[in-house]
């Protein structure tokens, strides 16, 4: 391949893709040069994922022209795209769990010797791919289900790189990675860039884009807004382009913390996940918890709401000891948990908005053994309005909503429960800026109404600006506590990495 | 790790193979010197003939009506289904045989003989059948082993292999299916083990390899039953048949037996429909209800292949429709069927002794051991149970 030519690797002219009832991609021109990282940003539903799926060959009925180099090509199936040197790294894991690492990495191109597979070559080739992402210590023969999630994420990246692509599409590759791993990934991207690859990088995370991208294209409502060099644009401008209006500063926060203690955790442990965690939280407080992935944050939350068993320690809610056996019990006590896995654990995607929002308060709507769904409607409609869930149709199937609106539905479910303590685990991951603002406002409103919010987030600006205090977790231990006044993004990050504190 | 494990296991298997083979060689087949007294065995005959089945009837009634065998037409299948001769090959299977390689009777008495009985599958009927067989075997002091393949052909084939491997003095077999019987019989025959087939009427080819076949004459019984039925119906009206489950001679015998018989005996009787809903009361009920809707008063009689579930379904349907004029007959001898006869609902059922079926097979085997002449087919006695004599058959066998 002509990887050394500095020129247009891929360009699209007037590309459109129509879904029944909507034009997802509307007459878009787009190009990416060899040896550059071209960031693609936009709110959820702006059409960037659809555009990338077109490139990956997921649709055979798009209109418009696509050129690879200078040759017009039709990308009507993943095979076509692969043949043209296009590889895609998906946001959600797309590995086959019961199969071995090598089979996943080399899927579709397992080396053969004659008609049989060449075991030796498979091993070597897998090692080579793994090495590219610094995972060469993994045994290619073990199954994906045996390794951890962020290991899998890196394996997936290795899988794409192993195909020696000319054009690499990355759809939020960092969402499941820790800070160290993100750094490593960026290093890889930089070296790929040097080798002349064209990289399309989709992210919601603006700092990342400024760190790694050369050019950036903004999309909104299926249309391309503009393409700029990264040096000639500021993050405010980008946000404005994405949202289509000037946005107020979305990182501002007032404290509503009261002096009354709401939650007290004493020496809580789940062996192997986190040990001896103690803290307290107050009414109206937003308590941030920060830590790298695997630090035990989500595990702590799961134990608090009774999803997992604890090995020791006590939890007091309003000075009354609670021992939730399961989530139902926890809800009754007044603790709710918004999970980070929206699609698998959070929402019933095949049900509608109404059923999802009311899911948590079913027991409350039961009088004399009869479930009165309609009694929940006022509250539900109020929440739909408050969170501006679009479309505001309670009968809409959740799976058909955009990511941001799905997340709002998830939040609405817990707001409907009106919990004393609400644990939010990555409440704005993979959510566009508009939705993010709405969610932040709601969090604030909840705090104002006296709920205690425990905010688990990897989004440092969000964490720092919303929290009254931030707890830092590292490798299963609670190592530090910072007041709002004393914490900045940098200090929190350093702390989470185990630096900067004695 | 994996390879090591597999290696170890293979090693273990081989170890056993070697030790096992040795053991097998060391085992000298001690065939008991058969000194059993032929006379003693023959003397037990009266005791056997005096055995009673659970219903109080004599367990073994040899010498039922001798049936007349018409000459085989050149091509039975060319005749219409209503012609009795169409069914010649099925009805008279075994009457013309070409016996091959049948072992000679040792004529040294039945006492102490090792006999393996392979039935077709588990069913209350089978239990009664084997009970009857045990009674006779008990008197003769035979070593009777009973095996059931649970209606699975592959398993029955395996059981036959295993039985051959045991080298018994006789195998008694209910073939699972008429058509698979020849191959099974042939295999036993080839191994040199004497064989008696019973109960299910096999293909004629199977008879070549067996000493004899014992069992009910389904066609004959149903021809007789049909006459009773036709008389009750007055020789006219529409009738319908609830058939046996397909896959064996009863499916044909219990439907086309009467059909072909009545074509001659009472041509005024019209066949309205025939269906096989299986042995389920609710399905049969639905079928008969639909018939009653469809044919209305034209339906005067129903012939069922089973006197329990099917008959219950029929009478539920008749009760619902308020019909008491429909004359129902069935193959019989179950408790449910006889109760229905006693209640005056079923007009007549066949005497289908289950215990007698098993007993006759064992008795025939004993006769062979005793050196007696065995006819190519031994039928069970034929009898129609009606309300007049139903009390004689209580308590039911199954």
């Amino acid at each position, binding site marked *: 391949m002509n990887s050394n030519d500095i020129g247009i690797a891929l360009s699209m002219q007037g590309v459109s893709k129509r879904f029944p009832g909507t034009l997802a991609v509307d007459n878009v021109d787009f190009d990416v040069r060899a040896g550059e990282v071209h960031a693609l940003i936009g709110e959820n539903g702006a059409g960037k994922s659809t555009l990338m799926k077109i490139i990956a060959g997921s649709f055979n009925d798009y209109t418009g022209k696509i050129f690879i180099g200078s040759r017009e090509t039709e990308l009507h199936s993943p095979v076509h795209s692969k043949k043209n040197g296009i590889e895609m790294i998906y946001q959600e894991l797309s590995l*086959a*769990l019961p199969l071995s690492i090598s089979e996943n990495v080399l899927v579709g191109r397992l080396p053969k010797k004659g008609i049989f597979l060449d075991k030796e070559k498979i091993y070597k080739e897998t090692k080579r791919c793994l090495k590219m992402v610094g995972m060469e210590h993994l045994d290619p023969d073990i199954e994906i289900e045996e390794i951890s999630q962020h290991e899998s994420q890196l394996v997936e990246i290795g899988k794409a790189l192993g195909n020696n692509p000319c054009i690499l599409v990355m759809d939020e590759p960092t969402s499941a990675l820790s800070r160290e791993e993100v750094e490593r990934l960026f290093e890889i991207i930089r070296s790929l860039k040097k080798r002349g690859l064209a990289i399309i990088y989709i992210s919601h995370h603006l700092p990342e884009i400024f760190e790694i991208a050369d050019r950036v294209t903004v999309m909104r409502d299926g249309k391309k807004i503009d393409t700029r060099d990264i040096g000639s644009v500021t993050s405010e401008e980008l946000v404005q382009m994405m949202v289509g209006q000037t946005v107020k500063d979305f990182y501002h926060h007032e404290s509503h913390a009261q002096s009354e203690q709401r939650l007290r955790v004493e020496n809580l442990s789940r062996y192997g996940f986190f040990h001896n965690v103690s803290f307290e939280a107050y009414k109206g407080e937003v308590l941030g918890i920060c830590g790298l992935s695997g630090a035990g944050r989500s595990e702590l939350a799961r134990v608090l709401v009774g999803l997992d068993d604890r090995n020791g320690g006590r939890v007091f809610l309003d000075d009354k000891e609670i021992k939730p056996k399961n989530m139902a019990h926890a809800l009754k006590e007044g603790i709710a948990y918004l999970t980070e896995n929206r699609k698998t654990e959070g929402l019933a995607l095949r049900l509608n908005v109404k059923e999802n929002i009311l899911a948590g308060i079913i027991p409350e709507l039961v009088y004399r053994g009869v479930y009165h769904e309609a009694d929940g409607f006022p509250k539900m409609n109020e929440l739909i309005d408050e969170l501006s869930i679009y479309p505001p149709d309670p009968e809409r199937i959740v799976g058909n909503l955009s990511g941001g609106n799905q997340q709002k539905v998830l939040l609405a479910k817990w707001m409907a429960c009106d919990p004393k303590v609400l644990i939010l685990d990555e409440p704005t991951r993979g959510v566009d800026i508009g939705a993010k603002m709405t969610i932040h406002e709601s969090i604030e409103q909840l705090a104002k109404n006296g709920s205690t919010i425990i905010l688990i987030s990897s989004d440092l600006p969000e964490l720092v600006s919303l929290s009254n205090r931030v707890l830092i977790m590292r*490798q299963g231990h609670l190592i530090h506590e910072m007041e709002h006044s004393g914490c900045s993004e940098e200090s929190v990050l350093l702390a989470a990495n185990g630096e900067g504190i004695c | 790790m994996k390879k090591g494990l597999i290696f170890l296991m293979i090693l273990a298997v081989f170890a056993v193979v070697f030790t096992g083979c040795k053991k097998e060689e060391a085992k000298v087949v001690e065939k008991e010197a058969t000194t059993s007294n032929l006379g003693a065995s023959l003397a037990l005959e009266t005791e056997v003939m005096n055995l009673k089945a659970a219903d109080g009837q004599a367990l073994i009634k040899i010498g039922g009506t001798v049936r007349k065998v018409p000459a085989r037409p050149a091509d039975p299948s060319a005749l219409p289904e209503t012609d009795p001769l169409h069914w010649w090959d099925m009805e008279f299977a075994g009457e013309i045989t070409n016996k091959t390689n049948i072992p000679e009777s040792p004529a040294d008495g039945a006492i102490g003989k090792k006999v393996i009985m392979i039935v077709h599958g588990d069913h209350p009927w089978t239990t009664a059948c084997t009970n009857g067989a045990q009674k006779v075997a008990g008197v003769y002091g035979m070593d009777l082993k009973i095996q059931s393949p649970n209606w699975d052909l592959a*398993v029955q084939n395996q059981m036959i292999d295993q039985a051959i491997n045991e080298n018994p003095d006789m195998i008694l077999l209910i073939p699972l299916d008429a058509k698979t019987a020849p191959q099974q019989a042939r295999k036993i025959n080839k191994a040199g083990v004497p064989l008696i087939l019973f109960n299910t009427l096999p293909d004629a080819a199977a008879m070549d390899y067996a000493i004899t076949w014992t069992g009910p004459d389904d066609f004959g019984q149903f021809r007789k039953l049909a006459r009773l039925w036709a008389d009750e119906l007055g020789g006219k009206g529409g009738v319908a048949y609830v058939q046996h489950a*397909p896959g064996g001679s009863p499916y044909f015998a219990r439907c086309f037996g009467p059909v072909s018989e009545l074509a001659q005996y009472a041509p005024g009787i019209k066949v309205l429909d025939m269906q096989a809903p299986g042995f389920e009361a609710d399905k049969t009920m639905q079928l008969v209800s639909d018939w009653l809707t469809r044919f209305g008063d034209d339906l005067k009689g129903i012939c069922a292949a089973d006197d329990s579930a099917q008959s219950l379904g029929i009478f539920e349907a008749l009760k619902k429709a308020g019909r008491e004029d429909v004359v129902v007959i069935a193959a019989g001898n179950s408790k449910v069927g006889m109760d229905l006869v006693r209640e005056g609902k079923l007009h007549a059922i066949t005497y289908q002794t289950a215990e007698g079926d098993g007993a006759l097979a064992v008795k025939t085997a004993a006769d062979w051991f005793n050196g007696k002449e065995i006819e190519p087919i031994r039928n069970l006695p034929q009898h129609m149970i009606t309300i007049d004599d139903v009390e004689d058959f209580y308590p039911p066998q199954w």
Partner: protein
Amino acid sequence: MLNKPNSKKSLLVAIDRNRIFILFTIVFLFMALFAPRFFNVFNLTTIMRTSAMNATVAIGFTVILIIGQLDLSIGTIITFTAIIGLGLKEYIGFGGSIPVAIIAGGLIGLINGLLVAKAKINSFIVTLGMMTALQGAIYTFTGGNSVSLSTPDAFAVSDWLALMIFPLVTPRVIITLVLIAASAIFMKRTRIGRNFYMVGGNRQTAWLAGIDTDKYTIAAFIMSGVTAGIGGVLFAMESAAATLNMGNSSLMYVISAAIIGGTAMSGGKGGIFKTFVAILMLDVLYNGIILFGLGNEVKIFIAGIILASVVLYEAYVSYKHEKVIGQRPELMKELEVQNQA
């Protein structure tokens, strides 16, 4: 980062993965030592021959499970093809009827596959409907009569199939073993074979990697139809007859064997050879039970208990596994240190 499994754990994993071989060995040894007349060439040949049909049928069925589908219609396909294979012999000879029968099996598989892959109906439903429809077709076309060979050479083929070439080995067994070996190697050692696993393990990944998942799904159903056809025809030829429900017991048998052999209903896991060993194990077990003079009830009961324990064991293992996913080894070590102190 990597939690290197210690040797104790990897032994357990090895035992777990090879549990069917261990089970087989245990059952075999037990029967060889205690069951009367079990361990001789004649009986072992019987076992091999008994297992031949289900072993053949299980090939395709295992592939179906690997691809994450289910085929309830194999029992009726067996019967259907057996009847075609024998029924047409009179007209076109075995040379014609056997291929026709096997192709018929493949066609039924193709219909199943098309309905599952293209019409996107759940395979449980498709094959359940197919089962009903086919059973009806069988009864309708045979008129309720079993099929047998009526020609004088009826037994020639069955005799040949049962010919003892070598202890334990008859042509029938050879055909089965060759089919199993070929398909096991195909599934394990070729790219196409591994693609079946990939489609079952994660359809989306497979599709994105350029594997035509629909084609593989259809191929799996065709394979299931063809192997069921081969199994049915061979069995019918050996019995020199085809009965109207000869395949009915195979479905449960093959499902049990595949599951006990370690193939998962969820797809992507398992192997043909393991299923074969599981079938052998069940046959050895049943054979032994009969030799002990025990009845059917014991067989059914033990088969149920084995299947139930395997399912429960697997469920329990993954239940336990779920609880420790993401556990940090260094924290566990820390705990040990604390406990010692």
